[in-house]
C-alpha cells in the first residue's frame, strides 16, 4: 500500500493542491479553508522530502501519466535539480503558512480571504508542475496556471495601484508565455516530439540550424520576462510593492525561481546542444545581463523609500547572480560548467528562504504600522525588537555574512568565477555585496539611529504565529549556513547526474500497415 502511494508521489504532489483549489472554493469557510490549505502544504513538504530521498537512492524518477510511454504521453521527470526546486517551493510555502493566518486577516478583505487560498493553491500547483514536468507544452500549461493565479493574487489587495500593477504584469507575462510557445512550435517542427529530453536528443542532428537558434532566443526572452531578468524586469518592483503582503511573500520566495529553473532546464537540454558553435554567445549574453542586473538592481535598491520596493530591487539584483551562474554553466571547461549549475541552484534555494523571511518580517512590521515606508519605520525599530532582529538576520544572509546561507552561495559563486578566471565577475559579485550592505544599513540606520517622530505611537511585537514562521525561517538560514552539507551535497550531484543521463531518443514502435490498408485506388 505504502509503496503504491510512494510510486504515485510525483503526480500527487501536483494533483493534491490542484484538486484542493476548487474544493476550497466550495467550502468557503475561512478557518476550515486555511487549515486544509496548510495541511496540503505540509503533506507536500513530506512528499518533496520523500522524492529527494528516492532520487538520491535510485536516481531519476520517470512517471508516465495514465501509463502512456513518454513520446506520446506526458512524462513527469524528477531528477536532482527538480527535486531541489520542489523542496524549495514546498518548504518556503510551508514555512509561510502560520504567518499567512494573521497576514491574510490583516491585508486581505474578509470576504475574499478564502479566494486568496484558492489562488494560492492553484499558483502552487502550477509552480510544482513546472518543476516536475518533462513535457515542453505541459510546461506552458503549468506556467499559465501559475501566472493567471498570480495576476489575480496581486490584484486582491486593498491598494488600487495593485490592480494596475497586475494588469501590466499580465501583459508582460502573456507575451513571455506566448514567446515560449512560439519557441516550442519551432522545436516541434525540427524534432516532431514534445518530450524535452527526447527533443534534446533529436536536436543534436540540427546543431547549426537557424531555427534552433531563433527558438532559443524566444525561449530566453520568454522566461527572462517571467523571471524578471534585467532589461525585462520593469513589472517586478511595482507588482511586489503594490500587491498585498501575503502575495508578495509567496511570489518573492517562489515564482521567479521556478521560471529561472525552467530556463536552466532548457539550458541543460537545448542550449547545450548547440553549444559547440555558439556557447560563447550564450555565455556572453547570460553573464553580461546577469552582471548588469546585479549592479543596477542593487544600485536602484539604495535609492528607494519603501521597504517592499528595496526588497523588490534586491530580488532583481539576486536574480542577476543566478543568471550569471547559468552563463558560466555554458563554459567549455567542465569544472566551471559544473560550478555554474551548482552555484545557480544553491543561490536559488538560499534566496527563496531569505526573501521569504525578509518579506514576512516586512509584512509583520506593516501590520503594526512601522512599514513599508521608511518614514514610518523612522526610529521605531525598537518597538518590535524580535521582528526587526529577524529582518536583520535575513539582511545579513542576503549580504553574505559568514554563518548564514547567503555566505554559502556567495562562496560557490566566487569560486565559480575564480575557476574561470573572470576577475570582472568576481569584482561585480563583491561590489554587489557591498551595495547590499549599503541598502540594508540604510534600513537599520533609519530604524534604530534616527529619532522617532515625537507623536509617533508605540507599537507592540508581531503576533505569535507570525513570529513562529519567521523564527523557523531564520533558524534554517543559520543552521544551513553553519552546516550546509545535506543541501550542498545533494546539489553537487546535479552535474554528474546530467552527464550520466544524456538525453536519449525515444523511438515509437510503429505497427506495420496491413496490405489491405495500403490502398488500391479510390472507391
Amino acid at each position, binding site marked *: 500500500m505504502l509503496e503504491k502511494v510512494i510510486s504515485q508521489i510525483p503526480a500527487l504532489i501536483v494533483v493534491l493542491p490542484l484538486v484542493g483549489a476548487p474544493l476550497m472554493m466550495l467550502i468557503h469557510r475561512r478557518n476550515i479553508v486555511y487549515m486544509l490549505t496548510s495541511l496540503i502544504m505540509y503533506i507536500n513538504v513530506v512528499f518533496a522530502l520523500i522524492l529527494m530521498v528516492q532520487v538520491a537512492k535510485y536516481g531519476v524518477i520517470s512517471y508516465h501519466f495514465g501509463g502512456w510511454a513518454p513520446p506520446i504521453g506526458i512524462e513527469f521527470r524528477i531528477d536532482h535539480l527538480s527535486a531541489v526546486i520542489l523542496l524549495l517551493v514546498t518548504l518556503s510555502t510551508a514555512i509561510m503558512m502560520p504567518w499567512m493566518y494573521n497576514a491574510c486577516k490583516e491585508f486581505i478583505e474578509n470576504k475574499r480571504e478564502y479566494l486568496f487560498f484558492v489562488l494560492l493553491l492553484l499558483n502552487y500547483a502550477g509552480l510544482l508542475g513546472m518543476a516536475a514536468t518533462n513535457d515542453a507544452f505541459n510546461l506552458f500549461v503549468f506556467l499559465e496556471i501559475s501566472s493567471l493565479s498570480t495576476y489575480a493574487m496581486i490584484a486582491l489587495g486593498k491598494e488600487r495601484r495593485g*490592480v494596475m500593477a497586475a494588469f501590466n504584469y499580465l501583459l508582460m507575462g502573456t507575451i513571455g508565455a506566448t514567446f515560449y510557445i512560439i519557441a516550442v512550435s519551432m522545436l516541434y517542427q525540427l524534432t516532431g516530439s514534445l518530450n524535452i529530453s527526447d527533443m534534446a536528443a533529436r536536436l543534436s542532428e540540427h546543431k547549426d540550424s537557424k531555427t534552433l537558434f531563433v527558438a532559443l532566443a524566444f525561449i530566453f526572452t520568454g522566461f527572462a520576462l517571467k523571471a524578471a531578468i534585467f532589461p525585462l524586469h520593469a513589472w517586478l518592483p511595482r507588482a511586489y510593492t503594490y500587491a498585498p503582503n501575503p502575495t508578495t511573500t509567496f511570489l518573492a520566495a517562489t515564482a521567479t525561481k521556478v521560471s529561472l529553473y525552467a530556463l536552466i532546464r532548457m539550458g541543460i537540454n537545448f542550449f547545450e546542444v548547440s553549444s559547440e558553435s555558439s556557447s560563447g554567445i550564450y555565455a556572453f549574453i547570460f553573464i553580461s545581463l546577469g552582471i548588469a542586473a546585479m549592479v543596477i538592481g542593487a544600485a536602484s535598491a539604495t535609492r528607494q523609500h519603501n521597504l517592499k520596493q528595496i526588497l523588490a530591487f534586491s530580488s532583481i539584483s539576486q536574480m542577476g547572480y543566478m543568471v550569471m551562474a547559468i552563463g558560466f554553466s555554458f563554459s567549455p571547461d567542465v569544472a566551471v560548467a559544473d560550478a555554474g549549475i551548482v552555484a545557480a541552484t544553491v543561490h536559488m534555494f538560499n534566496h527563496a528562504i531569505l526573501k521569504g523571511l525578509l518579506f514576512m518580517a516586512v509584512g509583520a512590521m506593516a501590520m503594526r504600522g512601522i512599514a513599508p515606508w521608511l518614514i514610518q519605520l523612522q526610529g521605531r525599530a525598537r518597538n518590535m525588537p524580535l521582528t526587526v532582529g529577524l529582518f536583520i538576520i535575513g539582511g545579513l544572509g542576503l549580504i553574505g555574512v559568514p554563518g548564514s546561507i547567503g555566505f554559502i552561495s556567495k562562496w560557490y559563486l566566487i569560486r565559480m568565477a575564480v575557476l574561470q578566471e573572470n576577475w570582472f565577475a568576481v569584482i561585480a559579485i563583491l561590489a554587489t555585496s557591498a551595495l547590499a550592505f549599503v541598502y540594508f544599513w540604510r534600513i537599520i540606520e533609519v530604524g534604530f539611529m534616527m529619532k522617532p517622530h515625537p507623536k509617533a505611537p508605540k507599537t507592540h511585537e508581531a503576533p505569535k504565529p507570525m513570529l513562529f514562521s519567521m523564527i523557523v525561517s531564520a533558524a534554517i538560514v543559520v543552521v544551513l549556513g553553519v552546516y550546509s552539507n545535506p543541501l550542498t551535497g545533494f546539489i553537487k550531484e546535479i552535474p554528474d547526474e546530467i552527464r550520466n543521463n544524456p538525453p536519449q531518443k525515444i523511438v515509437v514502435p510503429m505497427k506495420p500497415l496491413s496490405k489491405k490498408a495500403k490502398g488500391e485506388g479510390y472507391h
Partner: protein
Amino acid sequence: MFFVDHFPYWISVFFMMTGLYIVMSQGNLMKKVVGLNIFQISVFLSYILMAKVRGGTAPILKEGLDPSAYSNPLPHVLILTAIVVGVATTAVAYALIVRIQETYGSIEELEIYHMERKQSRRNMARWLYALEHDKRVHQTKGEH
C-alpha cells in the same frame, strides 16, 4: 520564390507584429488586450499551418487514403489547449480592466499614470500630516 512559398507564414508573422505593436503603442487598456489577442492568435495560426500537409488527409487508416500523407493532429490539440488558456487570460484581463475603471475612473494608461504619481507623492506626506494631527494612521488598513 521565397515570399510566395511561405505566404501563410508571412500572414502569421504580420499578425504577430501587428499585435505586439498594438500592445506597445495603444494607451487604452482595452485596445491593449485586443492587441494581445491578435498576437496570441497569430501564434495559433502558425501552429495550425505547420500541421498542414499538401494533399494530406485526416490521420485515419482507411482503404483509399494514402497513409503516408496525413495532417498531424497534435498541433491542433495543442492549440485547443492554448485557446482555452488565451480565453482565460482575456477574461482575467477584462476583469482587471473593470476594477481599474471602478477605482481610477479611467482606462487610459497615461491618465492612470498621472493619478498614481500624484497618489504616491500624497502618500509620502500623509504620514507626517497624520502624526501632526494625532490621527492613528498606523491602524488604517491597506493604504500604504
